[in-house]
């Protein structure tokens, strides 16, 4: 019995040591593990990626208050001109079950490739924004966020009301009167439960199937302003802020499609 206890104790010590060693080793490389271990290759192959905040800057809270509703902003550092502009911004949340969060396409008519939205964060992770400029170069800015459970978090308490409201959209413009020939800030609110498919109903052992906005197109007078592919990391009732440049008075239009093929659209008159 004595021998056994000794062995037992030794075993526990060994286990504890192993845990401590692997735990700390994991922690040290952990932040970049998912990115270097495949994400980078998967999305960008061997292309060079310049890191910094010269082209875009990502802002996110270090500690998320609500992991299912983390507000983030992407600010561009260069104006959108015909000669030089940000073509695409890809948003990756490394340690989410689905790291690919969204892909935004801009044009020179976007005015400014700035974005704000709310995302779900499932584990301590880097969030990365990778901008591709029209010369084909990639520029990345990343932020580390402490949050957990954002994707598996229970669906908002009133799913029935959310389903009834699904597809409603509204624009909010920063100023009542639009400033012609220059970037105007717009906000698009989309009512959609954006179910991640990771929330299990333990009663029926059924996972509520994923149901989320997959594509977003914003145009002004039929010219594209912002086009996006989005995934489950975008919070319920998606909310996007972006810029557009009205040349004249006209109509701002949003069209969305979800993964079940539902399509919705909304328009907003813009007057100078």
């Amino acid at each position, binding site marked *: 019995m004595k021998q056994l206890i000794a062995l037992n104790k030794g075993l526990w010590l060994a286990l504890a040591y192993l845990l401590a060693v692997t735990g700390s080793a994991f922690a040290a490389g952990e932040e970049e593990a998912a990115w270097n271990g495949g994400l980078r290759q998967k999305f960008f192959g061997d292309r060079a990626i310049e890191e910094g905040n010269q082209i875009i800057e990502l802002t996110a809270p270090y500690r998320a*208050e609500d992991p299912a509703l983390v*507000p983030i902003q992407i600010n561009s550092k260069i104006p959108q001109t015909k000669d030089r502009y940000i073509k695409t911004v890809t948003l990756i949340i490394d340690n989410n079950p689905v790291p690919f969060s969204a892909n935004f396409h801009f044009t020179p008519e976007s005015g400014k490739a700035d974005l704000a939205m709310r995302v779900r964060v499932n584990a301590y992770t880097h969030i990365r924004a990778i901008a591709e400029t029209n010369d084909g170069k990639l520029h990345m800015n990343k932020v580390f966020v402490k949050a*957990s459970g954002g994707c*598996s978090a*229970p669906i908002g308490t*009133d799913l029935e009301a959310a389903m009834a409201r699904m597809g409603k959209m509204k624009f909010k413009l920063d100023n009542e009167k639009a400033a012609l020939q220059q970037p105007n800030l717009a906000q698009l609110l989309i009512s959609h439960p954006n179910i991640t498919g990771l929330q299990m109903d*333990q*009663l029926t052992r059924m996972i509520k199937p994923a149901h989320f906005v997959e594509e977003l197109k914003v145009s002004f007078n039929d010219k594209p302003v912002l086009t996006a592919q989005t995934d489950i990391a975008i919070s319920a*009732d998606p909310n996007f802020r972006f810029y557009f440049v009205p040349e004249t008075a006209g109509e701002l239009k949003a069209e969305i499609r979800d993964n079940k093929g539902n399509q919705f659209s909304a328009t907003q008159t813009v007057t100078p």
Partner: protein
Amino acid sequence: MKVPVIALILSLTALNAPAQTDIPKLSLQQVAPGIYVHQGVHELPDSHNRGEIANIGFIVGQRCVAVIDTGGSPEQGHALRSAIESITTTPICYVINTHVHPDHIYGNIAFKQPGVSFIGHHKLAEAMAMRAPFYQEKAERDLGFSLKIENFVPPDHSVRDTLVLELGARTLLLRAHKTSHTDNDLSIYDAQTKTLWLADLLFMGHLPVVDGSLNGWLATIEQLKTIDAKLAIPGHGPVSADWPGALEPEERYLKTLQSEIRAFIKDDKTMEDAMENVDLSVRDDWQLFDEFHKRNISTAFAELEWEDD
């Protein structure tokens, strides 16, 4: 080789089965005749307090005891049960869960036996089912214990509107509320002592936490005010407080949150902006303000953004 393995299993089994004397004592106060409350602590649930942070307790009738919330861990449930058995020989007939939050339901398993009926809001079972996997993960990570699905004991009887429970020379009125603190809040009224057990519909000292609907909670508060009670029992705060004065600070906080966030939305300001600037003047009036205020703002902002639609 065989002998040590068996011995090891036996020794582990012995370690895992707590002796009767291991059950920690639970402090209780009698706030009105036959109404006992254990006071929680104003802390975030963690591995030190094991999530045992809420006010929990029981009401004794001539024929039956009704337990109201069972605590933040199975151990606290056992502690509550042994405290009840040391105070009265009246059997436990009912376990009432006031809502789905872990600090109120994780002791349920200690009371699961024939003859005990579990009672909750009609949306409690679904809320438990939806949250169980997420809560299991969280318990493992933050509280330092693991929970099986059996720990989530759903109600045997659900309350859609109201339910009258006879405890023997004592009648309890249970009310199911519309989405407020959560979407499954239940309050208990003891007519004999005019005591209103509000659980987390009433926060005192501990900042109110919105996990349901801000507008709904304020509407519920209006209804609660019409109840002819003398004493209220909050889910977090003192074991009891005078009614209806007990509601004032919570109502003031929630109303300010509502009016300020509405103003932010009307001015086309952002959630981020609101989270930084809404109503910081009351910071010193509340405990755990920094832990929950911003979260309340984001939850409420997302709700109020769509309130006119």
